Structure formats: C-alpha cells, structure tokens
C-alpha cells in the first residue's frame, strides 16, 4: 500500500454523482447542425482553412493550429460547411467567437486514417501528431497536450493520471474509466513513453470503486504484453474536494509540493486527465483526431446520464435527450464549484465541456445577499493552496492589485472552497477572478506601452539619421559644384561668367528652399 499525503484544507460538498452513473455511456444521435468553435483550447485560436460551401469528411482539418500554444480543430462528421462566422459560444462572457457551422450528411465518411505505432517515433514526432489531432486536456482547462509533453532537460520520474474527478455531479471520467479502462491504460503508456517517465500512477477517488477495479483489471490484462504492471499503478485517494486539482493530486500521491510560480515538471512530475490519455491512444493507435467526448448531463433532468457526443453538438440537443424538467432556471457548464452559467442553451459543446448541470431553484437556491467579512478565517482553513482568502478579498475589492499579487493571488486555483464555507456568502472566487483578469490586462497594456516606447525611440532615431544623411549628401554635392565652378570659371567669356553667376544664385535659392523643406517635414 502506497503511503498517501495530505493537502491543506478542502471541503466535502455532497457528491451527487450517483444520478448519472446508473446507465452506461450512451451515444448521442447525430444532430441536424454542428457548430464547431475554432477556439476551444488555451492559447491562440485555430485558423480556418475551409470555406462556407465546402464539403468536408469526418476528421478533416477545419482549423490549423496558429501559434506556439494552439491546437487543431476538425470536422466531427462528414457534411457541408454552411458558414464560418461569429456565433455565441460557451464562455462566461456571453460574447460570440468564430465558429464553423457544419450540416451533417449522415454518411459518416472518414478521411484516410493513419494509425501509427508510437514506439517507432520520437516524442517530438508524436507531439506534432497530437497537435494536428487537436488533442487538448479534457479535464476542463483545454490546454494543448503537446505543450505539456514538450519537456526540456528535466527528468520526469512520475506521470500522474488524474481520475480523481472531485467536483460534485460530474461523472464522465468515472464512466470512461469503467468502460474504457483498457484504452486509458494504453494511452497512459504512450504518455509515459513520450515523457520517459519511470512510473504511471492513476489517482482515483475512493468513491469510484468500479472505476478502480476496471483500471486494475486493465493493467493486469495488458501487463503480460507490455510489462506495464511494474510501472502502472492505481492509487486510491480519499474523496475530498478539490483533490482533483493537479497540484493537490500531486501532493496527495507523491508528497511533493509544486512551488509557487513553478510547473509540476520542475519537480519531475507531469499530470494528465484520464480522458486525455484515452484520446491520445485513439489519436495515435487509430489515427482518429479528437472529434467527440463523454459529457455528463445531470441536475434537473429526468434521466441524468453520460453521453458520447460530437464536439459542436448544441447543448439543447443533449439536454433534450436527458429530458429537461419544467422548473429549470439555468444551465451550468462544468461543476457547481468551478463551472459558470451558460449565456444561452443553443451554444455548442466544446472539447473542455465535461458536464452540463441543468439548474433549478430547488437544486441551487439563489445565494443570499453577501454580508461583510467578519474575518473568521474559515476560508483559510478551507483553502487548498495555503492562501489567505480574506486578505486577498480585501485587496481585490479595494483594487489593490499589487498587494494581492504579493499575497500570491496567482496561486489561487479558483476551486471555490472558500466561497463554499464563507458564512457571509461572499463570492470570493469572483473577486479573485476579477483581480486576476485586471492584473493580466494591466500587464498586457504595460507590455504594449513598452513596445510602443521602443518603437517611438527608434522612429526618432531614424528621423534624426535621415536628416543627417540628407545634410551630408547635400554638403558633398555643394562641394563638388564649388570645385567644378572654380575649374570652369577661367575658360569662360565675361557674358558666360555673368550667366553662370545668375544660375548659381538660382541654385543656391533652390538649395535653401530644399533645406527649409527638410526642416518642415521633421516638424
């Protein structure tokens, strides 16, 4: 038995997972329309490479990765692109973003798939394949997986697969582990190979015994062929929110703490979600880009269930499949702790959409009005990142962003444990999100200002240099004219000499004018 460790704080919200784990993962039927956003991942949006009217095949590239941190976007099924325009997407801002609308033809015609044997390729090649397959973290943040596999000289000792799924209501990873444990283990082995890690530890919370059993069975089943059983291990961790946060999971399993402002790779650990591992396996062993995912539809519905649905499926379709109840008041994407209310129901699901909770006043009664902070420090006891939320709240609400940063605001993982325990019902995480985005915007502005300063200084230098060069050129020409005049003047008749002087005077006047022109332009 592996010795487990603890992270500070944490809370025990009611798990509410049983509702959606009663039936197996169902395949959502093909919707009449798919809306595929070109920006579904952290980093830069993909650049569209198809046009409205184009016929595309299932798995065909729609958006090319554009920039270092970016990922590809594919057609989830075969059909015709009807538009590439701004559409409402699942984002807390409620603002539109560039999307490709696809009308499926129902034929499910695939592009040519090219499975690869990962053992015959280098990690760099495989990273490129994953980038082009649009593989991003499916845990919620949507960070491109190829970037996380691009490690420098650091030695990765431990690869951790995150199957904790600590947020209430969500059960998509649980169901995936139960039904596709084999693919997860295969994917984990590919990731281990790419990172050259010594061991793979799959962390699963102890409220998912079926998933743990399935994974253990999958490891022992594949052990004889890959000799994985020495390297792969399922670690059962206690159920405590947010035990599925990457830093918290690393802490619990290895006892190591990721230092502030550092990455897990800096301490020799890398962490991937179990669903991401599954996608990595499908992308390489089957040549299938990321076209669908498992999504939990739960809350105020008749049949809470997990669906395997195509990326771009309108959430309305999925909610209708689960049977929405009449007293619905809203929709939350993600879990009740970290999720956000959807701006509208006809937005499409994206790679990062792990769960839709149909909300009702009964399930989520409106929060009572916030009262003043009484500095009870219950938030400090709950904070899994060892922060002082009551101080951060004070700085954020008075817009003292510099001091908030000094109190390690950016170590906040926005888990919501502090807001959950606050007896004054202060929406602490909202304040922290506000402060973080203000600080990011200011840093961005500062960067732009510094860039403008450098460019302005160069501009001034250039003007100065041009002025100098022009003056030098003029001086040389004048000198040449002077010497030519001296040479020619003796051989001329008096009349010619007089004409020459007149010409010179005219020329001098023009030069004078030209000089003043130069001054004028400079001004």
């Amino acid at each position, binding site marked *: 038995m592996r010795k487990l460790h603890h992270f500070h704080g944490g809370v025990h919200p009611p798990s509410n997972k049983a509702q959606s784990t009663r039936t197996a993962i169902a395949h959502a039927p093909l919707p009449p329309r798919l809306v595929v956003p070109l920006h579904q991942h952290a980093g830069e949006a993909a650049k569209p490479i198809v046009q409205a009217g184009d016929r595309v095949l299932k798995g065909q590239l729609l958006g090319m990765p554009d920039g270092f941190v970016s990922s590809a976007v594919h057609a989830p099924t075969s059909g015709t692109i009807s538009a590439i325009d701004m559409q409402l997407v699942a984002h807390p801002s409620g603002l539109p973003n560039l999307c490709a609308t696809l009308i499926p033809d129902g034929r499910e015609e695939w592009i040519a798939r090219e499975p690869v044997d990962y053992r015959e390729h280098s990690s760099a090649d495989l990273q490129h394949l994953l980038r082009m397959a649009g593989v991003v973290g499916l845990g919620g943040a949507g960070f491109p997986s190829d970037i996380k596999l691009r490690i420098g000289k650091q030695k990765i000792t431990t690869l951790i697969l995150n199957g904790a799924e600590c947020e209430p209501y969500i059960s998509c990873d649980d169901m995936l582990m139960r039904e596709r444990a084999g693919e997860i283990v295969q994917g984990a082995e590919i990731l281990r190979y790419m990172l050259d890690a010594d061991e793979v530890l799959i962390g699963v919370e102890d409220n998912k015994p079926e998933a743990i059993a399935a994974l253990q069975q999958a490891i022992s089943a594949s052990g004889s062929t890959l000799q994985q059983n020495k390297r792969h291990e399922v670690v059962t961790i206690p159920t405590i929110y947010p035990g599925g946060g990457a830093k918290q999971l690393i802490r619990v399993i290895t006892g190591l703490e990721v230092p502030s402002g550092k990455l897990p790779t800096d301490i020799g650990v890398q962490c991937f979600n179990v669903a991401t591992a599954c996608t990595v396996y499908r992308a390489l062993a089957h040549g299938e880009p990321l076209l669908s995912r498992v999504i939990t539809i739960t809350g105020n519905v008749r049949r809470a269930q997990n669906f395997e649905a195509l990326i771009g499926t309108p959430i309305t379709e999925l909610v209708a499949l689960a049977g929405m109840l009449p007293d619905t008041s809203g929709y939350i994407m993600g879990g009740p702790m970290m999720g956000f209310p959807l701006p509208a129901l006809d937005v499409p699901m994206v790679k990062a959409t792990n769960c839709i909770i149909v909300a009702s006043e009964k399930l989520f009664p409106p929060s009572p*009005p916030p009262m003043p902070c009484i500095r009870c420090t219950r938030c400090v006891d709950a904070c899994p990142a060892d922060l002082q939320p009551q101080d951060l709240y004070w700085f954020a609400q008075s817009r003292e962003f510099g001091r908030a940063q000094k109190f390690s605001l950016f170590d906040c993982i926005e888990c919501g444990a502090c807001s959950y325990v606050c007896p004054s019902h202060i929406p602490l995480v909202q304040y922290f999100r506000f402060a973080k985005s203000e600080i990011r915007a200011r840093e961005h502005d500062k960067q732009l*200002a510094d860039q403008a300063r450098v460019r*302005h200084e160069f501009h001034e230098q250039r003007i100065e240099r041009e002025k100098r060069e022009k003056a030098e050129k003029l001086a040389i020409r004048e000198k040449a004219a002077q010497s030519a005049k001296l040479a020619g003047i003796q051989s001329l008749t008096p009349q010619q000499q007089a004409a020459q002087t007149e010409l010179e005077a005219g020329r001098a006047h023009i030069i004078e004018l030209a000089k003043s022109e130069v001054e004028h332009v400079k001004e």
Partner: protein
Amino acid sequence: MLSALLVMAAIATVLGAVLGFAAIKFHSEGNPLADKIDAVLPQTQCGQCSYPGCKPYAAAIAAGEADINRCPPGGEEGIQKLADLLGVEFKPFGSDTAAPKPKSVALVDESMCIGCTLCIQACPVDAIVGAAKQMHTIIAAECTGCELCVAPCPVDCISMPVIGEKISNWKWKYPLYAFTAAEAAEATR
C-alpha cells in the same frame, strides 16, 4: 583660534573633494525621475498633453512645468499612478484636456488610399506599412491609437474603430449582487 580655522578649512577641502569625486563617479545620465514618470505614461505618443510625446511630457512633469492631469489615454487611473509616484494629490482632468476615450486602433480604407505616405510620416511608432503610390496599411498590433495619422490623410480614408470587448480581451467583472425587490425594501426599511 587660527588652528580651529585651519582644521575647519581642511575638513571643508576634504569633504568638497569627496563630493566632487562622487558627483563625477556616480553621475547618472538623463533624468531618473523623468524616466520613472515615462514608465507610467501609456506611450501613446499622441501629443494630447500638448508635448510632442510621452517622454517630453514626463520631462516637463519632472521639471515641475506640467500638471499630472494632461494625459487622456492614461485615464484617471494614470493620474492616480502619477500622483502616487510624485507624492501629490490626485487632480481630475482639466477643462482644456480632451476626455479619455475607449481604446481604438487606426484602420485604412484600402480601396480609397492613394499612397501619399503622409500618414506614414505622421505615425510616431512606425506602425504603417506602405510606399509612395502603393496602398498603405496599419499594423494593428503596433498601433497605439494616437490618431495622428487621421488629420494628414488627404482623402480621409483612415478611421479609428474602437477595439471593443472580445473574448480575447474580456475581463471578469467586479462582483455585484443584484438585490431582489423584497431585499431592497428590507434594506431601505
């Protein structure tokens, strides 16, 4: 009496020499205060402060010739930053200064551009690409939104669309609680 005078004179000479040496040895180029002020200014280089750029304005503030409330692109937050830096009171925008505007970026109507290069000469950050009798275009990422290119254009083909809120620059808002009518009545009672 005489010895006291001599001692004082000797001390004065030695200290004078030390100070003179320090003045040469630790001489700093430029004006450090002006640089600090310049670092706070938004670097729009728009000249709305009546100085020909951010650096001259910073130098004028450092010399005590200009007020801190003359920079519209910096906004009230910029005035606050200057006030904090200089240890003076916050001062609202004067009536002779333009009001702060939302950030915008220049846009050349490329079908109308005649390629006169006047805007290129006016741009303080070289953010316009083009040559004589060739179409010009703005490098949006480098444009500071100073509007200096708008006036020189002989065909008025440059506009200044506001950048506006997009997903890429969206910010979380300050949390506000929406009181229900009943709660509001309760609170005012």
